[in-house]
């Protein structure tokens, strides 16, 4: 009986750098239930992206066990991966980018058209359908990238620092948007970020990582996530502060949370 949709136990990954063996991930354990949004946070170089590539099935040279819905990830068609850059092809319009995955999966034309129209409508992208990525703002581009992933109806959505190149305002806008989408689809989502605010706003379960080698330092349950008005609340600031403390290795430093 599998309870967790995503289950990683004692995951270890090594890679070779200039003739030396480097441990990227070490005894990583994490679980995420179906329909939940998990967030991995940590400083750069802590192996967040390595973890993501293992979950996406792009990296198969690991030790330990990784199970998604009880199966080893193979980069199959049930997982969608959204990256910060290079998600969209600059020589295709928004529409062509969105239908590309369906075309590759040999869906018939009316099916493709129907699915793409629904997703464009849902994501307010209809006025942008004929534009090229270069004609979009950063936030619009990420919306298209999300649309392109969702149109394939994945079971698991993986996002590797999807919003880190956006300015603060566009970032909050698309976080709100992602939350709406998640509420509607209840898609199991794993997001990587280095933003504490993003982690608290979105992550129902937050995994705090420490670098060299990458380990999960702390697993935080975050019941606050999912509240659209959260950013203005005292609890939000407190949670951010707590997370910051964990990121600094448990030392409270100057961040006092007890008010």
């Amino acid at each position, binding site marked *: 009986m599998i309870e967790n949709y995503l289950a990683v136990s004692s995951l270890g990954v090594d890679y070779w750098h200039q003739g030396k063996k480097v441990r990227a991930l070490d005894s990583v354990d994490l679980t995420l239930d179906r329909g939940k949004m998990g967030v991995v946070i940590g400083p750069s170089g802590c192996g967040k992206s390595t973890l993501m590539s293992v979950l*996406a099935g*792009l990296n198969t040279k690991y030790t330990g066990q990784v199970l998604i819905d009880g199966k080893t990830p193979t*980069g199959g*068609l049930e997982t*969608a*991966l959204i*990256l910060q*850059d*290079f*998600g969209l*092809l*600059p*020589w*295709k319009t928004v529409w062509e980018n969105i239908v*590309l*995955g369906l*075309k*590759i*999966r040999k869906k018939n034309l009316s099916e493709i058209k129907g699915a793409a129209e629904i997703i464009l409508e849902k994501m307010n992208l209809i006025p942008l359908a004929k534009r*090229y990525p*270069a*004609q979009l703002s950063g936030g619009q581009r990420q919306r298209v990238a999300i649309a392109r992933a969702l149109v*394939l109806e994945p079971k698991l959505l993986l996002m590797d620092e999807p919003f880190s190149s956006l300015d603060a305002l566009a970032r909050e806008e698309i976080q709100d948007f992602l939350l709406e989408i998640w509420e509607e689809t209840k898609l199991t989502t794993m997001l990587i970020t280095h933003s504490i605010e993003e982690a608290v706003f979105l992550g129902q379960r937050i995994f705090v990582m420490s670098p060299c080698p990458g380990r999960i330092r702390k697993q935080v349950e975050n019941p606050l996530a999912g509240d659209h008005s959260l950013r203005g609340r005292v609890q939000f600031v407190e949670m951010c502060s707590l997370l910051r403390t964990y990121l600094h290795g448990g030392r409270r430093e100057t961040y006092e949370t007890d008010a």
Partner: protein
Amino acid sequence: MRLMPNKQQGLFTFAYTVLGLFMGWWMLALVLDSPAVPLPWDAVKSLGESLRGDLLFHLGVSLYRVLVSLILATVLAVPLGIFLGKNPALDNKAAPLVYLTYPIPKVVLMPVFLILLGIGDASKIVLITLITFYQILVTTRDAAKNLEKGYVSSVKSLGATSFDLYRHVYFPACLPAILTSLRLGLGTALAVLFLAETYATQEGIGFFIMDSLSRMNYEEMFAGIIAMSLMGFFLYLLLDQGEKVLCVWTRL
């Protein structure tokens, strides 16, 4: 390089460039005062007469040769170029061969082709194809090689096959470079065409020009030169328009 940035402005620029060219020619003709450089309007008048004569036939033959050659070269060089750019290991094996044979002035092979393929269209088409093939191959290969690999893995993650990658990633990404190499190749193709048509043939614009020369009919010779230039211009325009329609994304 854009031929016409904006339609009206472009037409205007085009008009006074043509006018300027004719003015320059006219002055040169007056200064040189030689039968080898006729006055522009005499040449244009002769062009009108020749068009009613057999110039159109020779132009058609030349156009056929250059078009078939360019199409053949593209069809052969583009897939091979993308394939080599996509597979660096194979490219490393093929590189010495390309590197060694690229600088050979292949036009010197014309006599060999004349013997092997005869004096008809085949020898000329093979020669022009061979020369433009290299230009397109090298440019396409480099464009495919320098493609950002993030695009490839993002489309791969959608479950793409090798063919999907060629169709949706490599080919459209390389298309601007392919069209640029075709524009450069067009100039070379026309130059080689002229050379190939001046020897052992009775057909083509090159023959028409050299035949007029030998008859000392310089007006007609210039009619041929104008006709060949116009042919080059229209082919260039065609490629330019093709690029505008097919590669909208490069100008955003």
